[in-house]
Structures are given as structure tokens and as C-alpha cells.
């Protein structure tokens, strides 16, 4: 065997051994991650209360809030979220036992369609995927997978000669036995998801970096000092004045006109401003947040676009690129599809491995041993 061929063989073994011993874990993380991308839509599918009725002028937000508060005794609105025209408005409320519930309100009819409590499906899958429900061990274990993933990508590109042909001439042979089929699937799927593999491993390693720095006592920072309402700016009254949500939103839209609204967080504490967040047309990866005094409706701070520290920008972009949560449903669909493709890659890799690599490894060892003997 020539040296070049032997080197290729070694790259191939590296490629196989990087993921194989942990394939099931990787498979699990890829699968839960794909589901996490689409969790909101999956919930929407199973829970009719989350569906918006359709077209028509939306009612004022204060009418939606009034409907939600009427449906939950002693419920206090803490946030209102918009997930898109097909999803009902989610009004999150604090309840007396210290937990919170979500009321799903149709924005056109102003009717509370359902109330859900406890951890949502969405948050559950995010936690299962991100840290196996146990922090920080799970967070480390999952984000460390970025290393074998990146390694598999690089070695894969070396091993698979002229991989770019799979772009314009994808070939999957289904009739020549399982090994050939899994091999073709692995190569074509791998080629098409080069960009996605690179994205997931780099953003995944970013999550590793953030947690390592955090645990070393060197948190990244990059945020602005907090914005608070001064005591002197508060009215002296007997009971807390009611804040008008529509006026808060109007103030926010006056500051960032073309924003796609995502969430308003309403403070329970007088010194904390209301926070409106959304994304504007020009930079969907970089959400805008607007802090508004909830009583005077004066805009106290606008953070958006590139007007942030480099560290802060990086965190935001990395997170958005990892989750695919920045361009609405089309982007999510792409992320979901490629997430499943990645899951399939792990599985097909394992199938190929059991059918081929064990034998190849033994052979390579034999060759090397023979070579060493002959050199001796």
C-alpha cells in the first residue's frame, strides 16, 4: 500500500472514530435539537388554543390583557409575546403560588382560548437538548460535542475525494444493498450539510466558551449598565398606577418604526422599565430592545443593530445562528430539515461503521505492523 493511500486510510479512521464511540449521544442531541427548533410549531399543532383565528384587525393589546386577567384570578401580566400571525398571543401571568401561567388569546377576537401552566414543551426540549436537564454537567457534555462534530467535518472533507460532485450530481443507490445505500446517503447528506455542520459545531463551541469563562469567574459581559426609573420620576400615589400597554408599544414603534414585534416584558417593580423587543427588517439577526418608562411612556434606551459591544453582538448572532430563530418560519423550516439530516448522518455513520470500519481498523493495524516489521 502506498503512503498516500495509507494516509487517506488513517484520515478515514479518524473520521470514523471521532463520532462512533459517542454516536448515540450525538444522535440524541441532534434529534432533540431539531425538535427544539420547531417546538413552538409542534405545540401549535397539538394545542388548538395556540392557534390564531386568522385575518382581521387585531384588538388593542390592553383588551387582550384585560381578557387574560379576567380568566386567571389574581393573575398579574408579566409579558406579552407574539409568535407570528398563525400563533395566538401568549400572555404570561404571575400567580399567587409564585409560578406563572400562559393565557393564549386570539388577537382578532380577543378571546382567551386556553391556559397552560408549568414548563412548556418548548422550554423542556430546549433544556433537554442544551443541558440534559442538568446544569452545568449537561451543558459541558453537550457543547463539547462541537469538537467531534467539527473534526468529523474536516476529516470527512479530506476523506471524500471531490465531494463537490455531490452538489450537482447527488447519487444514492438504493438497490445495491444496505452498505452502499447508507454510504451514499452519508456522503450526499454530508456534502449538502457542510455549512450546517460548520455552523452547529462553531456555535456549539461558542456555548462551551461562554460556560468555561463563566465558571472561571471571567464572564463575557459586554452589556450596558442597567436602565432604571429614578425614584424622583415616580409619582407619589396610594396605589400603583395602571400602565397602558398600547401606549408603551406606540412609544417603542416611534423609536424603531419597522420592527417585527416579539415581546413586551412588564415589570412588577416600579423602578424597572418595560422592555419591548422585536427585530427590524434590515438586521433580522440582531433584535432591538427598547426600554420604556411604563408610566410616562418616555423611551429610556434603545439597543439595536450594530450599536452594541463586539462581545454582545457575537453572543446574539451565535445564539440566533444556532437556533435558526431569526427569520420566521422559512428559516426555522430549513434549520429543522438540516437538523434531521444531521441526525440521519450520525445514524448512517454508525451503520457504515458497524459494517465496515471495524474491519478496516484491524486491516490498518496489520499493515502498519507488517511495515514496522519490514522496516526493522
Amino acid at each position, binding site marked *: 500500500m502506498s503512503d498516500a493511500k495509507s494516509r487517506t486510510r488513517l484520515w478515514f479512521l479518524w473520521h470514523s472514530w471521532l463520532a462512533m464511540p459517542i454516536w448515540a449521544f450525538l444522535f440524541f442531541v441532534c434529534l432533540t435539537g431539531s425538535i427544539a427548533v420547531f417546538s413552538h410549531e409542534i405545540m401549535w399543532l397539538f394545542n388548538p388554543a395556540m392557534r390564531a383565528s386568522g385575518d382581521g384587525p387585531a384588538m388593542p393589546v390592553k383588551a387582550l390583557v384585560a381578557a387574560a386577567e379576567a380568566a386567571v384570578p389574581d393573575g398579574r401580566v408579566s409579558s406579552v409575546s407574539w409568535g407570528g400571525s398563525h400563533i395566538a398571543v401568549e400572555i404570561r401571568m404571575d400567580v399567587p403560588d409564585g409560578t406563572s401561567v400562559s393565557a393564549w388569546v386570539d388577537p382578532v377576537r380577543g378571546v382567551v382560548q386556553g391556559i397552560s401552566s408549568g414548563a412548556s414543551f418548548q422550554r423542556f426540549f430546549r433544556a433537554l437538548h442544551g443541558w440534559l436537564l442538568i*446544569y452545568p454537567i449537561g451543558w459541558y457534555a453537550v457543547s463539547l460535542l462541537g469538537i467531534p462534530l467539527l473534526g468529523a467535518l474536516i476529516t470527512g472533507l479530506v476523506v471524500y475525494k471531490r465531494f463537490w460532485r455531490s452538489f450537482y450530481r447527488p447519487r444514492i443507490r438504493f438497490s445495491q444493498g444496505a452498505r452502499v445505500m447508507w454510504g451514499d446517503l452519508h456522503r450526499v447528506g454530508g456534502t449538502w450539510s457542510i455549512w450546517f455542520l460548520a455552523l452547529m459545531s462553531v456555535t456549539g463551541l461558542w456555548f462551551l466558551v461562554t460556560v468555561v469563562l463563566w465558571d472561571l469567574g471571567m464572564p463575557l459581559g459586554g*452589556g450596558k*449598565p*442597567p436602565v432604571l426609573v429614578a425614584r424622583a420620576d415616580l409619582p407619589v400615589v396610594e396605589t400603583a398606577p395602571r400602565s397602558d400597554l398600547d401606549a408603551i408599544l406606540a412609544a417603542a414603534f416611534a423609536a424603531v418604526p419597522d420592527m417585527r414585534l416579539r415581546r413586551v416584558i412588564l415589570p412588577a417593580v416600579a423602578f424597572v422599565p418595560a422592555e419591548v*423587543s422585536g427585530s427590524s427588517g434590515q438586521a433580522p439577526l440582531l433584535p432591538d430592545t427598547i426600554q420604556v418608562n411604563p408610566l410616562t411612556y418616555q423611551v429610556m434606551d434603545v439597543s439595536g443593530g450594530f450599536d452594541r459591544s463586539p462581545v454582545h453582538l457575537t*453572543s446574539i448572532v451565535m445564539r440566533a445562528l444556532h437556533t435558526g430563530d431569526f427569520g420566521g418560519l422559512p428559516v426555522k423550516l430549513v434549520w429543522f430539515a438540516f437538523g434531521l439530516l444531521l441526525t440521519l448522518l450520525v445514524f448512517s455513520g454508525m451503520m457504515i461503521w458497524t459494517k465496515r470500519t471495524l474491519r478496516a481498523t484491524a486491516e490498518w493495524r496489520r499493515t502498519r505492523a507488517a511495515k514496522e516489521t519490514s522496516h526493522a
Partner: protein
Amino acid sequence: MICRVLLLTVAVFLFAPAAEAHYPVCKCRMIDAGIVKCTGGFSDGSKAPGVVLDVISYDEQVLVKGRLGSDSTLSFPRPDQDFYVLFDAGPGQTVEIEHDSIK
């Protein structure tokens, strides 16, 4: 521990980091015989340029009324009397440092 999980979750996954919870931190030391230098910041590693830092006597007279510079620090001559440094990022976002702990 639970707080950290929450914080990290919020910081990295849920929202843009603007919404994350953190508390103010501040350290002061003598840089030469008569000058105190204070550095402010936040527990998440964020800097604090422009945040108020006042030096106040024990009878509540403001001796130095200042704001941190672009490097998040402020230097001032050490007062002769007893005093405390108040790093004040807003209501409930304060750090107090007593004069006898500044060395």
C-alpha cells in the same frame, strides 16, 4: 445554583442578553499616598462607563460627585475624614465601600 441556571438560560438562550439579571460590583484601592482609584462593573462582566460614583462622609455630605470614565474607573484624592464610596447604578443597584477597607 438554580439562580445561575436561570441566569445562563436567560442570557444565552431565551432573550438577547439585555434582559439578564446581574448586580453591580466595585473595588477601590490606593494608587499612591493620597489618591484612591475605584473600578466599577457588573457581575456578568459588563463595564460601567458613565455610572455614578459618589464619595460621601459619614455625616452624609457628598464629598466627591463623580461618574466613572470610559475605562470604568474614577480616581479622587482621599478625604481626611471618615467616608464611604457609593457606586450607584440606580435604585437598588448600589455598592458601598467603607474608607477603612481601602488600602
